């Protein structure tokens, strides 16, 4: 593992940085309950579209505080989103503050929050949305959906695609024929109408998150087909390589030849394809929200948070912090792309010229 990280750092520093960023994004989404100062559906009606709270060290009399603090928020006109800092009220930011009891990861009951203010002070690091919910907390909770969905979808479709693609390519003949016809049948499904039909077919007592996960699973059960075709094509050419003949002549079994010699040789493609299709799922989720299949309010996901703000011109001009989920989508996608690049570099050792 350490060796791998070292190689990645030497080979491609950007992808190493990307890996670190992705790592932290996942840590934050894992600990969302603990880090976020408010629950995702907590509404502060009077603070609709409040801009991000500024964190101060020096108060109005010029006195320096070691502990950072926020000022209270004075509402001027909450319907048009006008707020002022109330410089008379100082609320220091405290770590491990007590708040409402909730279960971390749905398991451990706790009433500690990583940071927050006591009393009437409010801390909105990324501002609030129209309903007055803390965008920072919602971004954290939303990352749970947005970051996990890609992994689930990708792992299902890639495992199936690799399995059927390599079998079909390696054995050829009848097996190939049958599997490829199956793939064509699966590729024939019109996915948009399938989604509409699924929407109607799902029982109404499932929560929106459950429905969304089901849809991703079903989509990836369809999505493996095109991947299997590409893998099959690659296997067809790899199995003619001379090292496969050599491996056979040394008495290595068919199973080992497929798993050891053929599949790893497709990795230069598959790893890039995996890292490139994860962003597809993240973006696809926001598109699905439009037809009522994505994550529904009040549950947050980066996609549906962004679609609310992009659809509203007033928000775009007066509350730009509402676009922050878009920044996180961008960050995740670009990090996965860089990571894919770096992984391709180190999984194909013949590209290594530095030795």
């Amino acid at each position, binding site marked *: 593992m350490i060796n791998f990280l070292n190689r990645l750092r030497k080979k491609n520093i950007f992808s190493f940085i990307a890996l670190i960023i992705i790592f932290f994004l996942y840590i934050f989404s894992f600990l969302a309950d603990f880090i976020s100062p408010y629950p995702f559906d907590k509404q502060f009606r009077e603070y609709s579209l409040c801009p991000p709270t500024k964190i101060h060290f020096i108060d109005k009399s010029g006195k320096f505080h070691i502990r950072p603090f926020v000022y209270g928020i004075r509402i001027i006109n909450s319907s048009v989103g006008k707020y002022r800092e109330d410089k008379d009220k100082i609320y220091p930011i405290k770590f491990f503050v007590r708040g409402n009891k909730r279960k971390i990861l749905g398991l451990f009951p706790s009433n500690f929050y990583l940071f927050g203010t006591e009393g009437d002070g409010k801390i909105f690091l990324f501002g609030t949305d129209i309903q007055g919910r803390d965008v920072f907390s919602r971004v954290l909770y939303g990352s749970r959906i947005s970051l996990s969905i890609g992994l689930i979808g990708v792992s299902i479709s890639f495992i199936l695609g690799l399995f059927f693609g390599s079998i079909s390519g390696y054995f*050829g003949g009848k097996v190939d024929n049958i599997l490829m016809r199956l793939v064509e049948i699966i590729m024939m499904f019109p996915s948009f109408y399938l989604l509409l039909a699924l929407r109607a077919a799902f029982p109404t007592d499932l929560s929106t998150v459950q429905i969304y996960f089901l849809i991703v699973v079903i989509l990836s059960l369809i999505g493996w087909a095109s991947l299997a075709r590409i893998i099959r094509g690659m296997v067809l050419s790899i199995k003619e*390589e*001379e*090292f496969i*003949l*050599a*491996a*056979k*002549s*040394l*008495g*290595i*079994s*068919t199973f*080992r030849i497929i798993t*050891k*010699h053929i599949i*790893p*040789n497709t*990795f230069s493609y598959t790893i890039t394809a995996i890292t490139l299709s994860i962003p597809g799922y993240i973006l696809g989720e926001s598109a699905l929200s439009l037809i009522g299949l994505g994550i529904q309010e009040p549950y947050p996901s980066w996609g549906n948070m962004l679609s609310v703000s992009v659809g509203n011109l007033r928000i775009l001009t007066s509350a730009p912090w509402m676009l922050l989920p878009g920044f996180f989508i961008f960050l995740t996608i670009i990090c996965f792309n860089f990571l894919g690049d770096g992984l391709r570099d180190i*999984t*194909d*050792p*013949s590209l*290594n010229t530095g*030795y």
Partner: protein
Amino acid sequence: MGILEVKNLIVSIQSLYKKVNILRNISFSIGKNEVVSLVGESGSGKTFTALSIMKLLPQAAKIETGEILIDGENIIEKDEKKMVKIRGEKVSMIFQEPSSHLNPVFTIGNQMVECVKGNLTKGEKKEKVIEILKEVELPEYIFYQYPHQLSGGMQQRVMIGMAIINKPSLLIADEPTTALDVSTSFRIINLLKKLISTHKISVIFITHDISLAVNFSDKIYVMYAGEIVEKSPSKKLINSPLHPYSEKLIACLPEKYKKREKIKTIEGTVPDFSSLPSGCAFHPRCPYKKEICEKFLPEEIKIGESYVRCFRYGKITKNN
């Protein structure tokens, strides 16, 4: 009885329009600790003979009739599962271009450990690999290197190591030195000689280079257009070749010529398998051509220690 016996092997290949026999009536045997060279021009069926013995023929090719006995067992009847056991343990093969016969994405050690058969723990397998690396005169650190980091000679040593790691009784070497320079190829040949004598391996050595074959092997089988036209002990072949084709091949050896003298070649080319000449396949290029050669196929005739298929030494016995 020999390690390997091939009897009346006929291999055909299905082309778009018709089926052609690319190996015709191949019969030979190889004894214990014997080194036999197959020589002949490109396209004479040397590699196909080797691949039939491994049962690794390409999909279009098919064994029509014949027997291939390895240690008395006919492998033509065996299925793929049983062949996996035979390959590596009884027969193994090394190839022409070592760089393309190693998997580029794994380290040498990783690939060699893969080849070790039998119920051994990982550590034992690794020990065995390092032992073999020593035997093929490679340093231990090669274990952790990738194929592209090695030179051609080192890669060929790795291939040889992989081939002999399970102590097979027969090794097929398909032009193992063709892709290497002269001094490296000599070192590889010396290494092979050493391994053959220490492990008592029989070898089929496929080459274009007759002088190398004479130096390396006990017997030489000359192939032409999918047939073995002559089988002779090496010394005898180079001094008094029987078949006109062997004679011509030996006449082409550059060592026999003075400086600046023009080297003779065999006129014409190896015939296309889909339109083989009638009778003896060599007759269009043969200086001793008789009428009979165009009509009939010569049988194998024993002369001293050699076997030859040519009408110069015998009568017609079979209609074509």
